[in-house]
């Protein structure tokens, strides 16, 4: 869409520039003005860190969640976060979009501290980095169509018809398209099953065609075929739209399928962050116990 940007972004990795060119021609993205790999004049090439945690401390009162935690998310990759229940995986995602603030250290997006952003900067950040909540968090008082189109209505001046069309498009991506479920768009979230709600929440987050998507347990509670569909969708968004994904999951099959790299949360830090092959070969008992589901 903008050649000047491309040469700047894709300079060192010109082989990738094709993918980026496709990624940045998405209509919604043009309407919103998001360019992958560029933010406020700063650029980030594929494989370079886009989100960085630096020595992050986070606690809720006496309940310490992170201590000197470091983690890097690279542009264009799919990073899976695994770890025990209640250890702070959801907290990690919320730190990335400034829903929670770190007490110590920094969470940076393109090198800019998320904790220090004002309301306007946060708004912009959240159009580029979108989160799918663990429980879906659909708005009960709105129809599915309104839910999915929410961010478009907020941030673009698209008409109702166009928003409706985009919403249908996003729903199709998660397998709830109007061809298969003609009435779904006008239903209220309460009328849907848990798994359907989860997929609608996914559709709502991808509707703005963000640069980074944070998935909080996207496949928990879904049947195998829908698990598979979501996993394939995550891959597809990465491949075709150049989306960077961070996936929190307990489901190792999904993890191996979607990930480029895997990070294990253990003892308030991420001691193991490796690409899938290396990670699967790690001999450390902590890792082996977790991926083999052993209770030591």
């Amino acid at each position, binding site marked *: 869409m903008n050649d000047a940007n491309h040469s700047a972004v894709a300079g060192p990795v010109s082989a990738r520039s094709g993918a980026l060119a496709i990624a940045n021609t998405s209509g919604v993205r043009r309407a919103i003005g998001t360019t992958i790999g560029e933010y406020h004049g700063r650029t980030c090439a594929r494989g370079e860190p886009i989100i960085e945690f630096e020595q992050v401390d986070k606690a809720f009162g006496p309940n310490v969640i992170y201590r000197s935690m470091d983690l890097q998310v690279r542009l264009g990759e799919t990073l899976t976060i695994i770890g025990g229940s209640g250890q702070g995986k959801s907290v990690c995602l919320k730190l990335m979009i400034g829903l929670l603030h770190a007490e110590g250290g920094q969470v940076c997006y393109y090198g800019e501290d998320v904790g220090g952003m004002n309301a306007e900067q946060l708004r912009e950040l959240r159009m580029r980095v979108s989160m799918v909540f663990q429980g879906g968090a659909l708005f009960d008082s709105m129809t599915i169509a309104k839910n999915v189109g929410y*961010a478009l209505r907020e941030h673009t001046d698209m008409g109702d018809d166009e928003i409706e069309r985009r919403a249908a498009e996003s729903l199709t991506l998660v397998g709830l398209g109007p061809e298969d479920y003609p009435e779904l768009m006008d239903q209220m979230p309460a009328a849907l099953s848990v798994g359907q709600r989860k997929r609608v929440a996914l559709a709502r987050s991808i509707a703005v065609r963000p640069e980074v998507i944070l998935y909080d347990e996207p496949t928990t509670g879904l049947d195998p075929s829908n698990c598979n569909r979501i996993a394939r969708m995550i891959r597809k968004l990465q491949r075709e739209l150049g989306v960077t994904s961070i996936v929190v999951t307990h489901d190792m099959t999904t993890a191996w399928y979607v990930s480029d790299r895997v990070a294990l949360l253990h003892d308030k830090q991420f001691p193991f962050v490796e690409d899938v092959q290396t990670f699967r070969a790690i001999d450390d008992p902590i890792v082996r116990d977790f991926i083999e589901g052993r209770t030591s």
Partner: protein
Amino acid sequence: MSDPGGARSGLREWVVNVGTTINAGIKWSGGLAVMFGQAVVRGPRRPFGLFDISYQIVQLGIRSIPVTTMMSLFVGMILAWQFGEALADFGAKNSLGYVTSLALVRELVPTLLAVTVGTKMATGMTAELGSMKVTEQIDAISALGADPIKKLVWPRLVAASIAMPLLVAWGNVIAMLGGMLIADTVFDVPAGYFYHTYIDELEPLHYIMSETKAVVFGGLAGIVGCYQGFTTKFGTEAVGLATTETVIAVSVMVLLADFALTTFFMPIG
């Protein structure tokens, strides 16, 4: 129990408890004030969200008309009866209209409606926003790049501050009719005479006082209801807890505000 050490530690505990309560109270009021400030600063920006505001006015206002009508009718009747008995002893029952009007318009109608209808509005908000908070919908609004204060708090605050004065105006009329009914049927004061004396006693300032109270009480109910919803802790029972607290908080705040407004207006009137 009688050893001095026990007594001392008991006292110490008591002091600590009082301290914690005061601390919590200050924190709560501070949080409330901050949210009010944010709502007033961020609310009036474009887009104004007129649809949300009018929807809330309908929700809060129209649905409260039956309760308002009943409360006002009965308070008018009761007050007229009480004053009527007392005045009859002095043979002064003809001044019933003069006596009831001020008490009803300046004080009883706005305050009574605030603690009933206002509380009803506030608890509704707390329950709704509290369950949104618990299911992360409020976080989701932020995560989608919108402002929950502007989207949720502002329309409710404005709607409550608009609906309350309208309800109080309606309540004032109904309360007068209630008084008239009792005056005519029980004390043989003709309805027309009651009406004239009632209206005669009232000056513009009294209406202003009544409506000012209504705006303030409505706003208080709105902000307390929203704040309680937004600060709901985790879990479904937390919503219940927050809602119960809202009842107390609104009643206390309304009475305090009533006292403050009365001390403000009395010297002028």
